[in-house]
């Protein structure tokens, strides 16, 4: 029983997914309730997670393959928040499409449950299963739209995702072959004992793992699918993809690389790989984002650049002790801040594109007069993405850069801050278009209440954590601290 208790939050969400399907079969005329059932499931997961926080008695389950600890709890909250916001933001769109509503919500919930399993997984097989549990629904969701572009997005995402999974498995088998165990803690022990003899094998395994997860994180050079999938997939799904799988991939990578491969003989090497990937992602992502005219493609490239920013934190992790906590908590802080900021931006895009029927940045001209609240919220989210105070994005960036400086990665931080300048240019160009551009039509746009709620939650979070970042920073530090003591 206690083992089910440990995975209770995930079970609550999976139960809600089942309930959504059953409800649809039994009461097809009451489809309007579906999203609320989904929300109840997410809410249950949050409550259950909170009971673990209150109990404070963190432990592992299933022979140590799954853990509930501060780190898992932090990400469970983040994923529950993402799931809730995505569900609320989808209501309008799903009603309009009016096709297989129950399946849509069930898939979103299943994917979220997979993400939450990832947060606590401490074993290679569990990690792989959880990753597939979250990925397969996302492949389907990406192809959810009826048009050709959406089908293309789904197919592209599926094929490239399959290749990434294969690479990942290959890397995992190498680690298993080396250590004879899939448990991260056993692998770590094996590396400490005789890792020096098989260093090249371990490095190859690390590279394969980075390639597999790099696809999920959407970092250069594994980013090719991003703009097409974001543009083709339905916008609520794109919002989900842009934050959910990215955050989960970072959560898992930190666990694997620190718990499993954290030994000094390896960490210097993978830290350098991360640093190079970070620099490439930031630079290429931003340069391509500048020339985009479609806002979803722009957000796609910007998410590549943002992943590069997170990765500065990963690269800074390899140095032990207090500095490690800096880098790790910087990544966590950034993931959380980015998740809500980027969701907010996508939701505002959903709200606007539903009304004007276009994702073209040029059509956003004068949005300030047509839909002041949407424009203001989108502006706040974009400013946060650019890392300009007083927003959550600023502290996240500052914290990660700080970690980079501490880890002696000044060159990477300089590339990072210069990239911030470049990114400010294209983020603010949208803001300028909305506030200073001349609208072709003056008609006011009405926002649906569900969009307003989802957008309000994300935007208020961005501002509140921008002015009082301490609680979020504290939570991130506590979550990261489990590695320092393990």
């Amino acid at each position: 029983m206690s083992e089910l208790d440990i995975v209770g939050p995930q079970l609550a969400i999976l139960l809600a997914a089942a309930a959504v399907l059953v409800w649809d079969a039994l009461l097809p005329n009451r489809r309007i309730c579906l999203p609320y059932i989904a929300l109840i499931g997410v809410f249950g997961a949050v409550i259950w997670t909170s009971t673990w926080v209150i109990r404070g008695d963190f432990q592992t389950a299933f022979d140590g393959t799954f853990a509930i600890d501060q780190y898992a709890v932090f990400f469970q909250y983040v994923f529950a928040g993402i799931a809730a916001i995505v569900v609320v933001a989808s209501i309008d769109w799903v009603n309009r499409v009016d096709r297989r509503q129950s399946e849509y919500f069930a898939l979103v919930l299943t994917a979220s449950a997979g993400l939450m399993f990832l947060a606590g997984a401490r074993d290679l097989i569990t990690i792989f299963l959880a990753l597939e549990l979250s990925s397969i629904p996302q492949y389907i969701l990406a192809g959810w739209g009826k048009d050709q572009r959406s089908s293309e997005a789904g197919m592209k995402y599926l094929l490239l995702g399959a290749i990434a999974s294969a690479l990942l498995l290959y890397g995992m088998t190498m680690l298993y072959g080396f250590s004879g165990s899939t448990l991260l803690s056993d692998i770590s022990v094996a590396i400490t004992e005789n890792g020096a003899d098989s260093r090249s094998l371990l490095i190859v395994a690390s590279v394969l793992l980075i390639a597999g997860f790099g696809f999920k994180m959407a970092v250069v050079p594994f980013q090719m699918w991003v703009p097409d999938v974001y543009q083709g997939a339905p916008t609520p799904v794109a919002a989900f993809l842009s934050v959910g799988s990215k955050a989960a991939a970072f959560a898992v990578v930190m666990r694997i690389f620190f718990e499993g491969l954290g030994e000094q003989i390896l960490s210097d090497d993978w830290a350098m790989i991360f640093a190079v990937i970070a620099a490439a992602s930031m630079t290429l992502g931003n340069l391509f984002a500048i020339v985009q005219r479609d806002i979803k493609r722009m957000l796609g490239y910007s998410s590549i650049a943002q992943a590069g920013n997170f990765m500065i934190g990963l690269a800074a992790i390899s140095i032990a002790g207090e500095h490690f906590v800096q880098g790790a908590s910087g990544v966590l802080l950034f993931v959380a801040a980015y998740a809500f900021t980027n969701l907010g931006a996508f939701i505002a895009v959903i709200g606007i594109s539903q009304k004007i029927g276009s994702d073209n940045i040029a059509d956003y001209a004068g949005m300030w007069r047509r839909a002041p609240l949407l424009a203001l919220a989108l502006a706040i989210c974009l400013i946060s993405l650019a890392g300009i105070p007083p927003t959550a994005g600023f502290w996240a960036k500052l914290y990660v850069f700080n970690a980079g400086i501490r880890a002696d990665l000044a060159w990477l931080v300089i590339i990072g801050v210069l990239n911030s300048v470049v990114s400010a240019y294209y983020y603010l160009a949208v803001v300028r278009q909305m506030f200073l551009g001349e609208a072709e039509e003056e008609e006011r746009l009405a926002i649906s209440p569900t969009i307003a709620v989802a957008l309000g939650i994300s935007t208020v979070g961005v501002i509140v954590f921008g002015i009082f970042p301490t609680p979020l920073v504290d939570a991130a530090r506590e979550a990261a601290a489990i590695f320092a003591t393990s």
Partner: protein
Amino acid sequence: MLLTVLVFLPAFAGIMILLLPATRASYSRWVALLGSLIALALSIGMFFAFEKGGGFQFIDKASWIDVGAFHVQYFLGVDGLSLPLVVLTTFLTTAAVLVSFRIEHRPRAYFASLMVLSTSVLGVFTAMDFLLFFLFWELELFPMYLLISVWGSGRREYSAMKFVLYTVAGSAFMLVAILALAFSEGTFDMQLLGEANISSAVLPLRWVFLFLFIGFAVKLPIVPLHTWLPDAHSDAPTAVSVMLAGVLLKMGGYAIIRTCITILPDQANDYGIWLAAIGAISVLYGAFVTFRQTDVKRLIAYSSVSHMGLVLLGIGALGTTAMVGAAYQMLAHGLITGLLFVVIGLMYERTHTREIGKLGGLARQMPLIATGLVFAGFASVGLPALAGFVAEITVFIGAFQKHEWAVLMAIFGVVLSAGYILWTLQRVVFGPVRSEWDDADDQKHWWEHASVVGLAALVILLGVYPSLIMDMIDPAIGVISARVAG
């Protein structure tokens, strides 16, 4: 508490203005005037309550973010160097409100932006926590961008974006330097940093010095980082030019003295000669380029480059006298150039041209404006008994022993400035009367008189009674130059 009230008072007035109903939009100028007058009165009160030579005073200090090794404070304080600049800011804010009394286009947003601009500049001059300082430094970009791009003229969006990108690029370097310093010393407290003996950091200290200098030199501006300034000036509305030339450029000079010189005195000793050389080149280059200008505002903008070069020359000499001269030059230039822009703004409102070739003989048609222009021009040339003369002579005396050749170059620049100012006055104010301006009225509204007379009176006061301010600046600079000397 007093300093906090002073800094946020303009922003508070700005929020009040935004809350005015649309039908009462014309009241916004009165709210802005009231807010800036109260701030002015407060700052003058503080000026006389300040104990000369008593170090930092009116300190407001509270812990803001305190997580792990990351301590950020809310820390405001003024010393003899910053307090005169604070008074200058509140004074020029009042003048800027007065000269924009006739604004018709979106007055609420205009005055609110102006007020936020004032708060951010006051924040830069009073913040004693390096991160807080950086936040205020960045905050200034938003109102400036809006003020130039919405209420400007000509290529206003281009100029506004250029201004923002130059500043952000500079502050990117600044942020790296701030983080490196804060990491090695474990604090963002500028007072502590200014007393510490920093011998090493994660970056070589000469890089830290250089990065900070780049961030501030963009603002000053120095040749060759000055090209944003003429564009920004020529496209900005009058009040914004007043603020830009009057106080925004001073942020650069102030910050170099406060941080580069105070925190890193050894590096200052090593690179002082370079600062002096860049300063002298800026003086000469600015003066030469001024000769070719046909737009009055661009002309004044280049003369600002020249005059701010004197500030850098004074700083580069590192002695007490020279740096006091530099600080005094900042005040004098703020008032004189502020006055020049006010008068040119009045002239432009009536003639609608700033082309020197199209103007002429204005002494007949607008005698008061012409008088103001001639007075401001003479002050700019450095006529004895006016503020500019005191500043220039102090810089020259202070710097001569250390950097003879640089002073000789700069003196030649001052001679050139006499040439271009007098030549401009001759073409604009005197010469044949042009019939187009026969119907143009002279300066007649009370707010026009108030801003011109107020500024002119201060220019005279600072010229005939320099010890009023010198006695305040001198001890503060004395502490800094003592650090550099030994």
